[in-house]
């Protein structure tokens, strides 16, 4: 019982750590670039949103797996 609950929780927790670190990295680089060249801010903003969505998608795949595990307990 404990093992099953732990599995469901750890699945999301570990993936969220990696996703948060990488999204923070991407965001900080984008802000540096936007501060260096404000006239390109719109292009950088579009690319930033695209990158964030890709990284977020990995977390969401794992979330779906975790929900599947949760309903099997």
């Amino acid at each position: 019982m404990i093992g099953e609950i732990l599995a469901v929780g750890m699945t999301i927790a570990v993936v969220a750590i990696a996703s948060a670190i990488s999204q923070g990295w991407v965001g900080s680089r984008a802000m540096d670039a936007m501060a260096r060249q404000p006239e390109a801010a719109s292009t950088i903003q579009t690319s930033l949103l695209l990158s964030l969505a890709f990284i977020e998608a990995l977390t969401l795949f794992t979330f779906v797996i975790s929900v599947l595990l949760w309903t099997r307990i």
Partner: protein
Amino acid sequence: MGENIKKMGQIVDYLAPYPVFQLGPVTITSTVVNTWIVMGVLFVVLFLATRRLEQLPRGKQHVVELVVEFVWGIAEGLMGRIGRQFLYLTGTLFVFILSLNLAWFIPGLRPPTMDLSTTAAFAVTTIFLVQLIHIKKKGIASYISHFTFPNPLLAPLNLVEEFVRPVSLSLRLYGSIFGEKMVVTILFMLLPFFAPVPAMLLGALLSTIQAFVFTLLTTVYLYIHMHGH
């Protein structure tokens, strides 16, 4: 403690779609009915908003032109003038997915994108359409050589990448909307009326971003197919 976990496990059953009625051999689920209601509201709103189009926009025509210019800006930023012919596909995707994601503003509805069927239908149809557009605009020879681009040995990898695109598109949209709904429902069970509000605000923002990302990715895939890698 086990029964509390099992009680919260019923949330997935609560949020799952349920069949409403049968039309011959096809079961109509609640997701399809929600989609019909959103389609009806969208038809009425857009019909009233584009009644008398004038050269100099006034009033509600501004909003419509805002949306069109937004989608046109995405396509033009990537592809230039030739992006104009794809405005129908990407514009429809953006407006439809945005209204489906925000369908919970109509009381009693749940967003139909909370069901994997809807998002999978969107993704598979879009990717299939991109292949057809490529074949129609540039011919079959260009389509086959598109997969053997750097080296014919890499053709299986290119094929796998092409097949993974609908999977990732559908799961991205499904996961974010379903996850947001589940968080709001759990918060509502714990502390009604106050706790769900920040989650719902975040959910509204996230829904818009997901619709935008779907449209942007479709435009990027169209660009890749029209211009080579």
